[in-house]
């Protein structure tokens, strides 16, 4: 009996078994369709997260309320360190009984020179970091910071502010924006970054 067409190329090894090359073209077609599909839905950026506590609405009035699950420890925090972002710059607030006359500090926006020589007005993140390092030196046990902003301040500015509060950098003081933006974090013995005020809680001024 003649062999069917698809078996024409088969080779008989003499023991009754017939061997044929697998036709890979259909599988190649499927793989070639799947790969662009997956690459289209693939994110080429490294996505991480910033953990944040629920907001304390009306914090500026002195009493925490609302949906937040601020722990009793947070509510009893003696320092109550708060960073507010507004149109003109930053405002750092702390409990006056604990800190004294420095309980309300302002950091105005500043004009920085970029690497291209362009003058850009931006928030003074290096100065905010410098002040937070000073506060951390005075209150090394404190780990919480309340971060808030005026209603129209964009999320990007708030995220950068949270960056300034989270980690301790290699130097304690930075003056230029370039030096600050490229600074590396300090690492502990286990290779983990040393933290400044890592527990961020949102605060909304009413």
């Amino acid at each position, binding site marked *: 009996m003649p062999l069917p067409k698809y078996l024409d190329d088969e080779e008989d090894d003499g023991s009754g078994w017939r061997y044929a090359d697998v036709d890979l073209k259909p599988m190649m077609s499927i793989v070639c369709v799947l790969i662009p599909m997956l690459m289209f839905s693939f994110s080429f950026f490294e996505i*991480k997260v910033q953990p*944040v506590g629920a907001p304390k609405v009306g914090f500026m009035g002195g009493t925490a309320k609302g949906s937040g699950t601020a722990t009793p420890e947070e509510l009893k925090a003696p320092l109550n360190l708060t960073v507010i972002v507004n149109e003109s710059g930053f405002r750092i607030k702390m409990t006056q009984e604990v800190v004294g006359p420095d309980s309300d500090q302002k950091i105005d926006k500043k004009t920085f020179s970029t690497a291209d020589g362009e003058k850009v007005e931006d928030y003074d993140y290096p100065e905010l970091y410098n002040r937070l390092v000073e506060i951390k030196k005075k209150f090394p046990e404190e780990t919480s910071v309340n971060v808030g902003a005026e209603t129209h301040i964009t999320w990007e500015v708030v995220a950068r502010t949270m960056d300034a509060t989270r980690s301790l950098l290699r130097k304690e003081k930075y003056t230029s924006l370039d030096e600050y933006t490229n600074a590396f974090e300090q690492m502990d013995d286990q290779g983990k970054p040393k933290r400044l005020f890592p527990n961020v809680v949102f605060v909304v001024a009413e």
Partner: protein
Amino acid sequence: MADDRDEKVGDGTTENMSAADLLVQMRREAKAAAVKAERRKVEPFQFGFTSLLDALVVLLMFLLVTISADPLNVKMDERLLLARSTSDFEPKDAIPILIKKGFIAVDDKEVVRVDCKMQGGVCSDADVQNRTKCDQNPKQCTADERNRLKTMSFFVDKSYKEDADENSFLIVPLQKALEELVKSEQEENRELKREFKGLVNIIADRAIPFRLIAEVVHTAGTAQLSNMRFAIIKVSNR
């Protein structure tokens, strides 16, 4: 004498060559001809699929594993550009809330429309696209264009808020959607004897104002989701 003979053989001239030299020469020529003939006999070129398929299958596996392991699975477009941060916290599986320039979605379902106004009027699609383009690469836009686009403001209409009050922080349709998800997650956790952690991943565009972020966070809080994580693009410079 022997050196002299070698030179002659090397020259390739058959004059004054000994029989032995001629034999050596003929053997060399025969060998060269055989090699040439062998080369001519080589089969026509065939494309080898197997090694290419191996590489593609490895690439396919890499993509499948990476995509299935990413709990956020963020796809950025002209209405979603994440903020940059140096934060190094790993994302975890949680209920996702997406805040784009145009809508808020829960678990990939659009629940609330986000409106946009700019200089007293409504923003056009082109304005929104330009804003994303300028945010991504400020050098592509002029200073005037950047300043104009910075006046853009995103907000949720008061009709979606509690008691249609503009000052309210509670977005009602978002709360309902979140409560449904929380309920089903709590039931699932009860069956699996796991603790409900109230985790929520907020994937927000970098141009969204703090007011809208605070409204979403407050609404999530009322739906028992108080452990919030904001998605960011990890960068090395802050």
